[in-house]
């Protein structure tokens, strides 16, 4: 089931005008920001399908930038996100991409700060709900129907156990888990879907463990 909670239907509380093009876009931006760990200096955003055709009218650009500034869907600062980003020193570039995407509301975000880079592909599936389909070249299939944790970490022994034991301590059950890496000993990615929601404090607790790079919660 794509939609799990009644609050996916009656909600979210958000700044208008579009749940998919504004709230969903803000959520994609925010997940990218969380995974990056801090505010990027430069962001390049490719927009596909309906996102590319109507982003100005819907404030999709404003919302994506609001998310990158770590604003939630109901944060009124979203309205002024573009000027706030400029003041904060975040350079953002939008590219309307004609390439075909699997879903009409797709955005590809490249976040940069010097040598630190992160690439995320997010899809807004409707009603403010999002899916993350790609992370740093890893194809991932986050359905978005369950609460999920994305953990970017160094590929070392004990990393998975450390995360699992923190979740266990907070009585959070893992319903699905996937670990992938490109090169042995390099950067790896954990995708963990859970039965219970993971509070921000728990994500922070995980982030300070050895070998952890970034942690993002996808509710």
């Amino acid at each position: 089931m794509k939609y799990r909670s009644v609050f996916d239907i009656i909600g979210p509380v958000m700044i208008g005008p579009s749940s998919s093009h504004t709230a969903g876009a803000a959520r994609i931006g925010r997940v990218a920001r969380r995974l990056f760990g801090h505010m990027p200096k430069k962001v390049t955003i490719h927009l596909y399908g309906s996102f590319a055709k109507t982003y100005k009218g819907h404030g999709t650009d404003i919302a994506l930038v609001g998310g990158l500034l770590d604003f939630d869907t109901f944060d009124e600062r979203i309205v002024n996100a573009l000027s706030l980003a400029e003041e904060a020193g975040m350079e953002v570039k939008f590219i309307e991409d004609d390439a075909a995407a699997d879903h009409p509301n797709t955005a590809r975000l490249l976040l940069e700060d010097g040598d630190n880079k992160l690439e995320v592909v997010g899809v807004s599936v409707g009603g403010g709900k999002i899916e993350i389909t790609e992370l740093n070249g890893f194809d991932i299939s986050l359905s978005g129907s369950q609460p999920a944790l994305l953990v970017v970490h160094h590929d070392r022994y004990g990393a998975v156990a450390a995360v699992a034991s923190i979740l266990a301590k907070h009585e959070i059950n893992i319903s699905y888990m996937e670990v992938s890496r490109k090169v042995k000993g390099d950067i790896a990615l954990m995708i963990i879907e859970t039965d219970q929601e993971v509070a921000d404090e728990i994500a922070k607790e995980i982030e300070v463990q050895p070998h952890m790079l970034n942690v993002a919660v996808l509710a």
Partner: protein
Amino acid sequence: MFRTVEELVKIADTKHMPISEVMILKEIDETGKSREDIFEQMAKNLQVMEDAVERGIKEGVKSHSGLTGGDAVLLQSYIQTGKALSGETLLDAVSKAVATNEVNAAMGTICATPTAGSAGVVPGVLFGLKPKLNPSKEQMIRFLFTSGAFGYVVANNASISGAAGGCQAEVGSATGMAAAAVVELAGGTPEQSAHAMAIALKNMIGLVCDPVAGLVEVPCVKRNAIGASTAIVAADMALAGVKSRIPCDEVIDAMHQVGQMMPTSLKETAMGGLAMTPTAQEIEAKIFGFAKDGQK
């Protein structure tokens, strides 16, 4: 618990509980949250809806583009004259749906039901019926759970995204959800709720998503307005005992099929329908400084 409207109605009937209660129990089961927490969260959403309605009917907000705003105020003054042909209750619901979408278009705070572009129907209907039915706070919150239960089925079996299924998936779903919830609020049965949803949705099938200049303004605000009126009429029909010949789940499937057959130009790309009319093109050129073919 339930995946279809048929299962939803069956659970409500066998356990002798309203649809809203089935949704609440499912939410408790699914999230592990307490009943109090779930009620409190929905009460907050209700408050956001009420604030948006009040703002829209009193302030007469204008959107940044200037395309929409002020119509909720016009409708309220017209109702006051006592000349409303469609009746005060119906028109009050219409004005409150408009109010919500005007606030949404002005980048104000709203609660998506099920989406932002279709956020007017459910609260419009609820606050429009409030003077007549005098619901308690709990009944108003339950109205939202009942709406949510039907929306949950549509979202999981079809779509609530204009980009994926056209306006029928957004305002169409919202209208069906509101119709079903009105039935419960007015004392009807779960089966009547399903018929109300089916009757309402049948009349929204085929509705395309063709926003002028890609803005959630024209025709979205007025589609929410008429959606609210359709929801109340459909609920009245079901409460009178009128049944939908096509079962609700099959109507939802049909809506989904139609959405898949719809060309991309009519699914929130502003490349067809009203968005391509000469007037719409003029508006778009004025707002963004260029026409869709890229000419400056």
